[in-house]
């Protein structure tokens, strides 16, 4: 049993915090093509994602939510990643892609927070 090397101080990097305090694409959307919500009942994190899709392209994306810095920053970063991209890109997106965009290492418990928006996004495009 070796002690794991946690780099906890790393997770609140300025990039994450900036996306937490001033999330991109924050807010709701009138008449979205699709709107999906999800939550992590174990910690109470909530995310709603709104997509406007035209010609298989995400022409606009917004989200609202509440929760920890990781879940909210992750939603902000994820929405930035997909804005203007076509659906194939979104469908091909892997968890690792989001993780490397976040640029931090997370413990298993916090990974669930980071992936909440990812789950909701995947859910929202599954019908297309």
């Amino acid at each position, binding site marked *: 049993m070796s002690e794991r090397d946690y780099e906890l101080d790393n997770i609140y990097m300025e990039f994450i915090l900036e996306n937490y305090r001033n999330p991109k694409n924050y807010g709701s959307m009138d008449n979205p093509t699709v709107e999906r919500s999800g939550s992590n009942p174990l910690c109470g994190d909530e995310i709603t994602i709104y997509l406007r899709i035209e010609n298989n392209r995400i022409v606009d994306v917004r989200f609202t939510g509440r929760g920890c810095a990781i879940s909210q920053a992750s939603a902000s970063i994820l929405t930035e990643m997909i804005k203007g991209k076509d659906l194939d890109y979104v469908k091909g997106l892997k968890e690792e892609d989001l993780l490397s965009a976040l640029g931090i290492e997370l413990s298993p418990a*916090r990974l669930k927070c980071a992936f909440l928006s990812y789950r909701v996004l995947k859910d929202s495009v599954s019908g297309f």
Partner: protein
Amino acid sequence: MVNDSILDVKRIREDFPILRRRINNKRPVYLDSTATTQKPRAVIDAIVNYYENYNANVHRGIYRLSEEATDLYEKSRKNIGNFIGAREDSIVFVRNTTEALNLIAYSYGNLLREGDEILTTIMEHHSNIVPWQFLSRKGVKLVFADINPDGTLNMDDFIGKINKRTRIVTVTHVSNVLGTINDVEEIGKIAHDQGAVFIVDGAQSVPHMPVDVRRINADFLAFSGHKMLGPMGIGVLYGRKDILESMDPFMGGGEMISEVHTYGSKWAEVPLKFEAGTPNVEGAVGLSAAVDYLRSLGMDNVRGHEKYLVSYALERLGSIEDIQIYGPKDPEKRGGVISFNFRNIRSERIHEQLRKEGIMIHPHDVATILDMDSVMVRSGHHCAQPLMERLDVPATSRASFYIYNDRDDVDALYDAIGKVRGVLRI
């Protein structure tokens, strides 16, 4: 205020090997004893001694080793029973509080019928909610008594909800979130007046204060070894003997039978009737050593120490404007548990739309940031989601104290909380 606790915490800490560990070069400030406690050397040694000298299966062996193991197991039962004022023949060993409550829900629950009611409170742990929800399949209704704004049980509401259909009243002695100490003696009287059976969830009381089953009018009392310095995997169900005798067994198998035939079986006497399969002798022996350790400190002193610590913590944390504390303010009415949250923040530095609603710093971030200073608090719903809904919060942070905590730990908590907004730059 001087550091005048009744317990000699410095000396006590030396009994706990894990407290010598350094995490990121910092001493551990363990404030999660409500979830599970650390183990003194005496308990670890009892486990080792058991396996190195006495290990055998119990009850059936004719050889001396097995007789010695049986003797240790039954003496542990007696010692632990004694700790709560109960005779050994009303002590059933289980895995934990959860199993104890499920045992009652299955075996006593068998006797309930459609239309019967079970009265509990909104501050219960999931372990004292979900097993009773299972009974709704057969039309048994689960009713929740509310709390007052200060986090104490609303007795008017409770009394208004008890009636002739109430067959079971089941209440936590101490809330694992609010810290509230319920007046179980009084609640037991009310339950018995209505002819209901009274169950006490003692998971957070037996470890922290003197508890005597006769004084609190409990027909059943459930608690966990791992929350009172004992090993994991052992817990206790105390049950009034005549009630235990009237109940069907829970699990079937070895130990709990007196005769098995292909067409049917006869049960062993209480308490063995409820202990199917090879028991956790190690766990019983370890818990007995834990009880000895607690007894040597004196449960009045343990309670006194926690009252002292929680007063100090209420005072210090209460002085932080940002922080909201849940539960009773009077240390006499609460155990050594403090749940808290940051109040909504409307800092200039946050997104204008968020600013309108305010940002609540999430307990997960609080716990992570406190952990950078090796201050370990729990954050989440604490297995009390109905209470979270009632308090209208997604989660809380929770610090809890035990015999190895001191004012230093409260100070470390205070200091670490002070860093949270800085780390988040909010």
